[in-house]
């Protein structure tokens, strides 16, 4: 379970109380304490008493720990406008009066997203959106039911639009291990993927004769469906 550091010059007990039942480990941070222990994955900074001091602390923390820690700032309503141009310093903020559930959900979201190595977790290309965090594929807004290998194959092709891959390359890059199917399995999966894309979108995966396959957005699809 992740450790979360809390900085609050006046109300540290109140902040800790908000997070009473979240299950995270908490530690209290002083204002000079910008060097965080390694296990700290998130920091909650209470800016309601001294906004500038809080932001300075955030900057100091960022200087030591570039992007591998999440920062949640607690502010008053009138301080919202102060956040302009400081978006690189914090990851999220919450406005007083604080809601217990909102605070823990925000923290949880930050930590979950932070746990994923890839920050750009969505591949959006034409009508197709692949969420690489949740393995969801949506086509023109409707969810697609894919098997794991179908998903991985689609993701691989869609991540390299326009590039042609041979069956052997796809097999080694997508399957990447001993598989009973051999290179012909690629054809089987491509056929199935096209069937799932349906008539309207099957042209997203194109056969390049005697070479292999590529992902491409045909002109008739790109005009009205591009994001």
């Amino acid at each position: 379970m992740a450790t979360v550091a809390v900085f609050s010059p006046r109300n540290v007990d109140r902040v800790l109380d908000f997070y009473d039942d979240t299950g995270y480990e908490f530690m209290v941070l002083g204002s000079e304490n910008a060097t965080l222990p390694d296990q700290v994955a998130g920091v909650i900074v209470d800016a309601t008493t001294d906004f500038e001091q809080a932001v300075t602390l955030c900057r100091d923390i960022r200087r030591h720990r570039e992007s591998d820690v999440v920062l949640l700032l607690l502010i008053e309503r009138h301080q919202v406008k102060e956040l302009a141009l400081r978006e690189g310093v914090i990851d999220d903020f919450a406005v007083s009066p604080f809601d217990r559930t909102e605070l823990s959900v925000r923290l949880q979201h930050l930590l979950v997203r932070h746990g994923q190595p890839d920050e750009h977790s969505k591949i959006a290309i034409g009508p197709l959106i692949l969420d690489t965090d949740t393995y969801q594929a949506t086509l023109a807004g409707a969810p697609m039911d894919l098997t794991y290998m179908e998903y991985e194959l689609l993701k691989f092709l869609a991540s390299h639009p326009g590039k042609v891959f041979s069956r052997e390359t796809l097999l080694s890059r997508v399957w990447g291990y001993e598989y009973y199917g051999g290179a012909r399995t690629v054809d089987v999966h491509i056929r199935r993927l096209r069937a799932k894309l349906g008539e309207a979108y099957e042209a997203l995966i194109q056969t390049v004769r005697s070479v292999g396959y590529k992902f491409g957005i045909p002109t008739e699809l790109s005009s009205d469906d591009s994001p």
Partner: protein
Amino acid sequence: MREDKRRFVLHVVEERRIKFIQLWFTDVLGIPKSFQITPAELANALDEGMIFDGSAIDGFSRIQESDVIARPDPDSFTILPNQPHVARMFCDIINLDGTPFEGCPRNVLKRTLDRTHALGLTFFVSPEIEYFYLDPTTTKPLDEGSYFDLSLSDTGSEIRKETVFALEETGIAVKYSHHEDGPSQHEIDLRATDALAMADNVITARLIISRIAANAGALATFMPKPLAGVQGSGMHLHMALFDATDNIFADPGTPDGLSAQAHYFIAGLLAHAAEITAVTNQWVNSYKRLVPGYEAPADIAWAHHNRSALVRVPVAPSTREENYQVEYRAPDPACNPYLAFAVILAAGLDGLTNKLELPRETTENLFTLPDTKRDALDIIPLPSSLEEALLRMEESTLVRETLGDHVTEWFIRNKHSEWDRYNTRISQYELARYLRVL
């Protein structure tokens, strides 16, 4: 890789609000078995599998060593059609110490596929599944249609159409489907995949075909010969072997387009046909289909165009290499596809590795060939009963090596006792024929 697949399954279950996950496997006879678990149990099932009492499953453990583990294969995770909150995964059965369980049919096929893989080859199968739709109360056919018939008020064809949609939705690609020769007899041909995926597909397809029929108030049966005097239901298998890139059965340079390897493979099928028949045709009733005159093979022979032959090399509609396939016509849809694919592949591979010589093509119509001619041509019949097939299987090293001791011994014991049970029954036919005249 396993970790990625685990996360994939967990995420899809979460995002698509799956409420139940069915864990499927089959017993040695190919009868599907299933656990149902909730998403809360899923992570644990993926990590550790589910322990169950194997002695409750036909052909699995003996009482004293009964616990085995069903470990789901995340590759097979699929949301089931028409039941949006239910997904399924196929399981491999493993022992408590993590080794593959020798009674698991899926493991048997995997072993043979591993051997094929070691030769640098992949085995692709495309089955033609035939079955009847019957009225569940009278067990009479729903219609009197025939081969390729197109009629507007055909209940069976309506049910079949719905079935094809459901199969496609499950990721089982259908090549084509049509009304078969018999009344209410239908055929669904699946597009080729690798043999393990296809064995899973056959199990799934049988369930989907039956379920959709039941929803429509009909009974779908894969019984090999449900109606006397009408052709039975087979499951012809079209097969090809691929090396890294090509179908090794194709050789455009030869007169028939077939390579030497294809000839060896066919020779292997013919050499072992009698031994493997108990597995490809495992029921007493299977042998009522394998009789002359009903489009089913009764003799061990091969030909290009001859539909009475056991092994047929269909005419390739174009020169695309995937069309060069060898068709094995004995199996019926009530076989255990894992075991059937394993023994058929083993027979073909034996021909391939030992370069067995291909006998002469049989161009004669075997159904009408007189016995004297048959003897002159040296044509041997397939086993004509389950008992005969079992005797041939018992002599076979190939079958024992392929299925392993555990499955072989259980299978032979189980099938002998089935034959004995059948043999001690007095049939309606006997009563009608003999009671009054003898």
